[in-house]
């Protein structure tokens, strides 16, 4: 099952890789002359996130996750993070 779990993994981005992907995305957006538009979008989303952050964190912690991971998925995810 270990091999199968590995075969079933999606392409994952670690936090560091996500930052690298975001930097690349920003360069792509800048090349299109849309940096200001990206900043506006992220700024608006950041403000809205600040507005809901506490309430969502409290309520999500109090509720069971609807789509729970299987044991294989959990082991695979933790193995990826440990690698």
């Amino acid at each position, binding site marked *: 099952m270990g091999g199968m779990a590995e075969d079933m993994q*999606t392409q994952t981005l670690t936090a560091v890789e*996500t930052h690298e992907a975001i930097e690349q*995305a920003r360069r792509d957006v800048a090349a299109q002359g849309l940096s200001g538009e990206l900043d506006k979008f*992220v*700024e*608006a989303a950041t403000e809205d*996130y600040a507005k809901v952050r506490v309430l*969502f964190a409290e309520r999500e912690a109090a509720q069971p996750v*609807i789509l729970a991971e299987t044991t294989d998925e959990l082991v695979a995810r933790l193995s990826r993070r440990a690698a």
Partner: protein
Amino acid sequence: MSDEETLPWPQGIGFEFLLSVAEVVEGDPQCDDLGAVIAAAARASAMRMGRPIYATPFLRAAAAAITLIRERPLEAGNLAYGLVAATGYLRANGIHLVWSPDEGWDLAKGIETYTLGVTEAAAVLKSWEDRPRGEDA
């Protein structure tokens, strides 16, 4: 999907934009399924025969939110991620929204539990447009 089949920003919702919003989520969660982020952008900006599948910004915002919330690309925080990607997109396009955190929660949970589809979620977002302050309590 070719560029001709997706709406360019600001009408469409770009992958780069959604990826940047993921960075906003507290705890800096790992992106476990990048394909879901790409799918959300592609879905919200999809075109067919020269016309957008989702004809209004509210429908495009709802389509992105639904894909992000149900597919759960991040290891945590997907409800808030999907919600603020939608509201951020609308606000960045000059649409003024007035809504409360409780209303945001209800929308996100309605999407997650399949109570709200694209048209229903878009209608909720539209109902937040240009409300007088005080209706978002």
